[in-house]
């Protein structure tokens, strides 16, 4: 197998042996692991197609992989086989500034796209925390979000077209520089399909003007309720902040312990609010000023004890510290952490957060929250010692209750981390068997077999992965 693939590509593009098999047996979700037989590193769409055709002909399963930063096991080679890494496909193919788009290969790190056009005042808007390393292909597969998706939309809204190798090894081009061609919109289905309908090798992405004016505020609240009600009211006021993030006391304690960051006495929750505009400079400045004042007024009405507004870029970066360093701080403090990714309608935040704390207390587990409040995308983060079975059990129970509540409030089991192998059991909470059949039908348009990233998303396909432990991810 290795030698055959080595002939199709070059020997140097095929990795095998115990070291390589180990290194590629999971992504950033490490609860479930499965060894691939080998790893290939193609350099072009044609090479990917050649590998896939070989797999299809020999009935060998294959799984795409970018940087391996996924949080739900999307790049896990569940049935072994071949891991197709895009990391040697990291070039920008074409930049079209007047039409504000560029075409790049799937393996390029997302941030490099923005870096390439920042001098032209543009950027690629989707910004998951991992954007400096996660790949364009990974963003497309997972339909990634990030703090700024509240205003700018998730990845699906920024992809204009894709080149994809389908599970038979045929090269498909869908969409393009100019979106909205005739026919069914397959390409919306491909974005977010977690690599189960083929391997995206190149994409046209939309470039968004960089903001010409930004205002960032960090607001401290005496109670959780004050903060969550503020979020709901900001959204209802009609202001659409670029980012609206919340951190609770658990995160602040971790930040103080890990980095010595200090926050005002009596703070139960922090909100980070960023307003921006990319209108021409002067109206943008006024608009953003007005928005941040509206936000500040709402915060004040909800008993804010401190409102810091950044006066320059350095201060802005400092305010973002709390958000960006939060998870790292958690990682330093606890032997194990589990982060959930449920979503709720935003007006339900106060009720939901109360519920999260109530559940944690009832199960005797510790929880901290750092999340995209503006989207209603929760990341309750349990920290515990996984060597104690009682704690593990309590964390599992608490997590399940929280996810059930999200669904009962009309929300979703996952906002941005994906289903992968981690949340297959959760989908039936949201969808009936008929609903899931609809999804299976959609997948079938592209993938009739069980070779292309098998055992993912749909609960009916789950059986082929032996779950070691549910609900124990390290993630954000």
């Amino acid at each position, binding site marked *: 197998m290795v030698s055959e693939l080595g002939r199709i590509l070059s020997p140097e593009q095929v990795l095998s042996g115990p070291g390589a098999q180990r290194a590629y047996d999971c992504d950033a979700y490490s609860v479930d692991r499965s060894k691939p037989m080998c790893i290939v590193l193609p350099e072009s769409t044609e090479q990917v197609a050649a590998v896939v055709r070989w797999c299809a002909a020999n009935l060998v399963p294959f799984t795409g992989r970018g940087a391996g930063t996924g949080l739900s096991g999307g790049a896990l080679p569940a049935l072994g086989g071949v891991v197709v890494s895009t990391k040697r496909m990291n070039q920008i193919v074409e930049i079209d500034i007047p039409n504000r788009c560029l075409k790049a290969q799937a393996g390029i790190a997302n941030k490099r796209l923005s870096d390439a056009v920042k001098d032209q005042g543009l950027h690629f808007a989707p910004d998951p925390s991992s954007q400096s390393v996660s790949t364009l292909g990974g963003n497309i597969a997972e339909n990634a979000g990030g703090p700024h998706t509240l205003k700018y939309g998730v990845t699906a809204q920024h992809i204009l077209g894709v080149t994809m190798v389908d599970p038979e090894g045929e090269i498909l081009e869908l969409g393009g520089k100019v979106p909205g061609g005739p026919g069914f919109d397959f390409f919306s289905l491909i974005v977010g399909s977690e690599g189960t309908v083929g391997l995206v090798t190149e994409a046209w992405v939309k470039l968004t003007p960089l903001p010409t004016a930004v205002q960032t505020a960090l607001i401290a609240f005496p109670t959780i309720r004050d903060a969550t009600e503020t979020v709901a009211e900001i959204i209802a006021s009609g202001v659409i902040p670029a980012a609206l993030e919340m951190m609770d006391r658990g995160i602040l304690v971790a930040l103080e312990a890990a980095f010595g960051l200090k926050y005002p006495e009596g703070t139960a929750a922090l909100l980070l609010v960023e307003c921006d505009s990319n209108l021409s400079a002067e109206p943008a400045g006024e608009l953003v000023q007005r928005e941040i004042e509206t936000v500040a007024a709402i915060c004040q009405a909800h008993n804010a004890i401190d409102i810091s507004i950044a006066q320059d870029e350095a201060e802005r970066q400092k305010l973002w510290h709390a958000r960006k360093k939060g998870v790292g701080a958690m990682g*330093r403090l606890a032997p194990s952490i589990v982060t959930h990714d449920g979503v709720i309608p935003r007006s339900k935040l106060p009720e939901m957060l109360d519920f999260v704390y109530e559940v944690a207390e009832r199960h005797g587990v510790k929880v901290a929250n750092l999340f995209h409040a503006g989207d209603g995308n929760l990341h309750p983060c349990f920290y515990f010692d996984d060597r104690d079975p009682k704690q593990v059990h309590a964390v599992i129970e608490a997590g399940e209750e929280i996810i059930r509540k999200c669904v009962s409030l009309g929300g979703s089991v996952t906002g941005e981390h994906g289903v992968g192998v981690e949340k297959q059991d959760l989908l039936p909470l949201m969808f009936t068997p008929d609903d899931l059949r609809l999804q299976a039908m959609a997948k079938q348009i592209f993938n009739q077999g069980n070779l292309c990233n098998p055992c993912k998303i749909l609960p009916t396909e789950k059986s082929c992965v032996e779950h070691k432990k549910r609900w124990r991810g390290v993630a954000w």
Partner: protein
Amino acid sequence: MGIHVSQLTDLTTQCIRCGFCLESCPTFVLTGEETESPRGRIYLVRSAEEGQVQWQDAKPHLDKCLGCLACTTACPSGVKYGEILELARSKVGKSLPKKALLTGMTRPNLLRIQLKLGRLFPSKRIPALLSRLLSGQTPEVDKPQLPAKKSFPSLDESKLPPIRGEVFMLEGCAMRVLYPHVNEITRRMLRRVGFQVREIGQGCCGALHAHNGYLDEAKAMRSRLYSALSGDIPIIVNSAGCGSWLKDGDRSGWVFDASEFLLQEGLAEILAREGTGGLTRVTYHDACHLSHGQGIRSAPRELLKAIPGLELVELEESDMCCGSAGIYNIAQPKMARELLERKWKNIESTGATIVATGNPGCHAWIAQAAREHGQRVEVLHTLEVLERSFLRPRSTS
């Protein structure tokens, strides 16, 4: 061995596999292979420690690590990669040629003899036999040359401040043989800010040994050095690799890189007053053990920018390893060469005529690229650039 199993496990479990280190790692950027990334190496070390794979499976990938520590800068969870690497390397098999090479490089007299002997052989590169023994690859590194003696005009006593203290200066193994004038310049700079060097016989600090897995020997060497430099006065180091290693030891609070110490003691003001840059365009390469190892990025830049008339242009990927990495360019010539060419391309595109850096390894390796590419750019230690600004006559306009 003196190494506890649990120590390595504890260190590696700090990694939460987020992957934020990936794009900072030069070998991952070049190969795209998880096994050549910090996360992959940590995982392999942990797996070897837990018996999931053999140490021999992890070894080739540990060998390819530059030890540049760029990953520690990128890591949000504070994983101590440097310690993991040193411990892991000490557990995998040792290579005799590598040990001999280390010994040869870290004894100044031996190194001098080798360099003189080296002139008897016609080849420009280091001996192919040595390279094959170490890497199985053809050599890329030019044989080092003994430098021509440089002399400096004596300092103008009337302009100097009174002496306010004493310091030690680490003479370094490679530094004192290959770049003795940098040591002389360091003394002059220290004197300009009012410090005198307490001269004392000293041996190797052990940094190269430590970075290659000879941890016990390295620690012993460091202890010996510390006892030679006894007394509570600052230890000034002009070689990033040595400084980084010394800062990990017991006397860490007393160790300073020359650039940070000189900036702190007011050299920038003196440069602004007395120096001249002659309108040169300079760029700066961050030595890994200065930027990632010691977190020193702004001090050298501040000093360079203080020189009137000097234009400091930022180097693309300035903190990406040049491939020198101690003895890496001898042990892993192919990867080192790729990194050097990448570095060189970035240097050339700045349009600078001088590239400054703070480590002898980077200095020699990048200087080789400069020779190969037509000597259009001069490679200097940061302190050399500063010294020139004092020597160049100030224009009267």
